[in-house]
């Protein structure tokens, strides 16, 4: 291992705009990704039925696991969505 501080002093912009640990608790992170009932493998099991973005009510109303309005917003914002 080496001195680490010298590797990061050349630029002061960039990096997390807030607490990096906030990435552990992002809204929507309980996501639907991989929980679809229409395509399945045996491992690992699904852990959540929440929508990956949007509200559960919106997703249910559209017969999808992800509300399309929220999906549009997420895609436009660059966050993407699992479906």
């Amino acid at each position: 291992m080496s001195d680490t501080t010298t590797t990061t002093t050349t630029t002061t912009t960039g990096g997390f705009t807030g607490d990096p640990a906030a990435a552990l608790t992002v809204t929507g992170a309980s996501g639907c990704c991989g929980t679809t009932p229409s395509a399945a493998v045996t491992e690992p099991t699904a852990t959540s039925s929440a929508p990956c973005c949007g509200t559960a009510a919106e997703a249910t109303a559209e017969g999808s696991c992800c509300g399309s309005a929220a999906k549009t917003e997420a895609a436009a914002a660059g966050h993407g969505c699992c479906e």
Partner: protein
Amino acid sequence: MNTPTIGPGGLDRLLAGIDADRMTATVATLAGPAFTGRRAGSPGGLAARTWLDRQMAVLGAQVTTAPFEVRAVPQIHAAPEATWHDGNGSHSLVFGRAVMPHPASADLPVVRRGGLAVAGSGDPVGRWLLVPAGMSLFDAYGHADGAAGLLIARDTDPDGWHYTVLAGSDPGPLPILTLDRATHTTMTTAAGTGVGWLAATTPIRRVDVTAANLHATWPQTSGAGVQVLLTAHFDGVGDHPGLRQPAASDNATGVAVVLEAARILVPALPEGIGLAVALLDAEEVGALGSAHHAGQLRRAGATPLVINVDGAGHLGAAAAVEAGGPVHRLLALLDQAGRHTGLSLTAGPVASDNRRYAAAGLAAVGIGAGMGGYHSPADTPERVDPATPAAVCRLVVATVWLTATSTSTLSSLIGD
């Protein structure tokens, strides 16, 4: 094993070697017509996987293929026909813009004609039912005994295309079409007059397929120490009959980033750090490739740090980062790399393969840096800003480099 130059000079020399043009070419190839949108289990998906296998072999990798079965992948097998009449004249609905078979639709390959009605109002028998806003598909079925089919409103993208969805509910007994909101509103009005009708098909079926991940390792980077796994899914939602869906931003860009990062890092990695790459299949049908791989890693007792890239098409103010598992040190390194490369990061949902690895207990981050288009014909290579994959690649290379050279971490209650 290499003896790298530690410090800003060593890293900056690596970063200077990142080739944006190479990534642009990779995106263009993966998004090209030969790979037909790369839906899992499709001939185009297999062709893409074969091409990627060769690309990683060129980088000196030992490449293995890990197949797995996927059940019931939706496939629109013909352009749907849809013509409706408002009492004064008929209107053809354009596939992909005004109309799309719903992923939970029954397969209706021959035209079915029926009057228009609103679900929950009047006799449904033999009619196409417009499902009002706020009514769930489940509830709509409760009003649809004997109906010809269901019509659901959906938002379209800024270019007016319907999104293609592969993950979703199992099909029910009725044909279902999604309509753009303006068409749905107009047809709902016509349904109120009692004279409107629709003649339409919903040609959609489910196919059981074999998908496969590609795993790459390099002998010179497989020693003991910290292991880093770079991942990106190579599958897309696939072309429809007569509609190309190139899947450039999602996720040819992520694949391009990972390949370029590996090209830069493999010859230069310091001692004590191992590098592996997994190019994942079947993300679009529910992150099944990463589910398969995460299970393999768990059974093997492997605990790599996972960096997943999904969407590096058009960077906004900052790249989104979602983290899971014992990831505090990796987040600290990512932050450090972001500051070094000048890429701003923000906590945000990246609903992708990283979640499968995190759910398996691994330290995993997902990085998303915007889509030029998304799950539609608008997701073309021309919509990819070449500066975006380059910026994300710099971030990834710097993070891996710092994994070997930095002791940074964040305060963690669980001590990771």
